[in-house]
């Protein structure tokens, strides 16, 4: 049977599988992880890349195993029952780009916050650094480009917007997203029982927190 998935070879130990959208990419990745063929299975926005052990496996063999694992179609992931609430302090020192973003969008800060906290969102993917969440479902009125000059230092917990998504910075570091707020929610905690409390596919709701409510 010929798979409807397009496999592309990259380098000597990588294989990319095309996906229609982030949800399908996550579903493909989950199915391939369950098949246990590869060292790493990493979903992107519209692709999944697997890294295999080139000493143990020949690439054609891996392609066949991947096609076999997907031959009966991809089971959509069960909609995660869990709704995770992410508290955010918007604007001010917590979201230094909010004011400029509102000017660009022709919104007041209150309108921006109402739109951002209004709908339900979904974690499209985790990537970049441990626990960094790319969250889809952003209202079209809030779409903003990346900053032309990336910042050298973005604090952990920063909430950014770029490419039609909300991004949650799990770690402090450089970053180019438009920063509208910050969350005290720990997106990654190596010492916790579950170091990764936020996972791809989770449903997300944002809640506005006042600056006074930021934990001391």
């Amino acid at each position, binding site marked *: 049977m010929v798979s409807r998935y397009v496999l592309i070879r990259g*380098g*000597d130990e990588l294989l990319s599988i095309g996906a229609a959208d982030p949800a399908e990419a996550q579903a493909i990745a989950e199915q391939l992880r369950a098949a246990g063929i590869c060292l790493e299975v990493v979903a992107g*926005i519209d692709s*999944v890349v697997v890294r295999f052990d080139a000493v143990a496996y020949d690439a054609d063999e891996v392609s066949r195993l991947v096609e076999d694992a997907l031959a009966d179609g991809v089971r959509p992931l069960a909609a995660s029952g869990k709704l995770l609430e992410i508290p955010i302090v918007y604007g001010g020192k917590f979201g230094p780009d909010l004011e400029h973003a509102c000017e660009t969008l022709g919104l007041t800060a209150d309108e921006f916050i109402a739109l951002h906290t209004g709908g339900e969102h979904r974690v499209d993917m985790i*990537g970049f650094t441990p626990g960094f969440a*790319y969250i889809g479902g952003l209202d079209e009125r809030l779409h903003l480009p990346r900053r032309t000059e990336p910042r050298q230092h973005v604090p952990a917990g920063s909430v950014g917007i770029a490419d039609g998504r909300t991004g949650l910075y799990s*770690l402090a570091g450089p970053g180019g997203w438009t920063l509208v707020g910050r969350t005290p929610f720990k997106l990654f905690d190596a010492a916790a029982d579950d170091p990764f409390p936020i996972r791809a596919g989770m449903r997300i709701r944002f809640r506005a927190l006042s600056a006074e409510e930021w934990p001391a």
Partner: protein
Amino acid sequence: MVLKPGLQTTVQSRSRGGMRHLGVPACGAADPLSLALANRLLGNDWDAPALELTLLGPDLQFDTACCFALAGAPFAATLNGAAIACHEVQRAIPGDLLVTGAALKGARAYLAVAGGIVVEEVLGSASTYLPAGLGGYRGRALAKGDQLSFTPREVQDLTTPVEFRPTMLSAWALRACASFETQKLSGADIARLFETNWTVSRRADRMGMLLEGPALTVTSGGRMPSAAVFPGTVQCPEGGAPFVLAVDAGTTGGYPRIAQLARVDRHLLGQVRPGDHLRFLRREPHAAVEALHAKLDYWRPWLPDIDSILC
């Protein structure tokens, strides 16, 4: 005890595997082969936690008797003022002063102690991952006054056979294959990518290295939906200067992936320093895997775990 910390001295061991989908990078020794060579001399497991010295190493004072070994980039190291050699077991007694000095060539050396440095494993490895402050010695690079603990163990004298001492260079030719977005470069730019003798910029660390040379142009304009990247992925950001990802690099990125260093030569990235020259030798994937098998076969007599070391 650490008297002077050096430029960036961290505790490193094996990489972290199977967690890239959670955003956890490979981590681990930038040059795992040299880590394994240092540990081999002391009878340690190849991935026993050791110090990774970067360009300028630390000054250390021993509080207890210790057998140690240096491998990797040659450093102008002295013990109590007398020069000591890499690739052989050295012995220190309490009060001895080890000045590791600067790398003469290459970027990193590994200072292993018999018994290994005692640190806790986090997410499956003892390796330090600086961006998240985890692993290694308190999740950070060494600082003045730090005390490293290990269980002293006596070992036999041993030196690395000459044929198993890696050569350090200042011009590197690393085997690489085409990757997912190579075809987004024009034919002329693909040729440029593989024919240019690139210069490694000052931006070269455990995250990756920016190369200087002719600007490359990607037809799609330089950005794409975020997708998985790996150590050895060569990205082409908007400016057109290739960026080679290293062990601590993020797990996904939004820049075209124009080449992928082959597994056989990826460990050498850990020895490339700013100002070095770097060329990508284009190989078809099957040829890269054949070369990998040949390298594994070469090293196996001295390092039986070579398959895990170059992974």
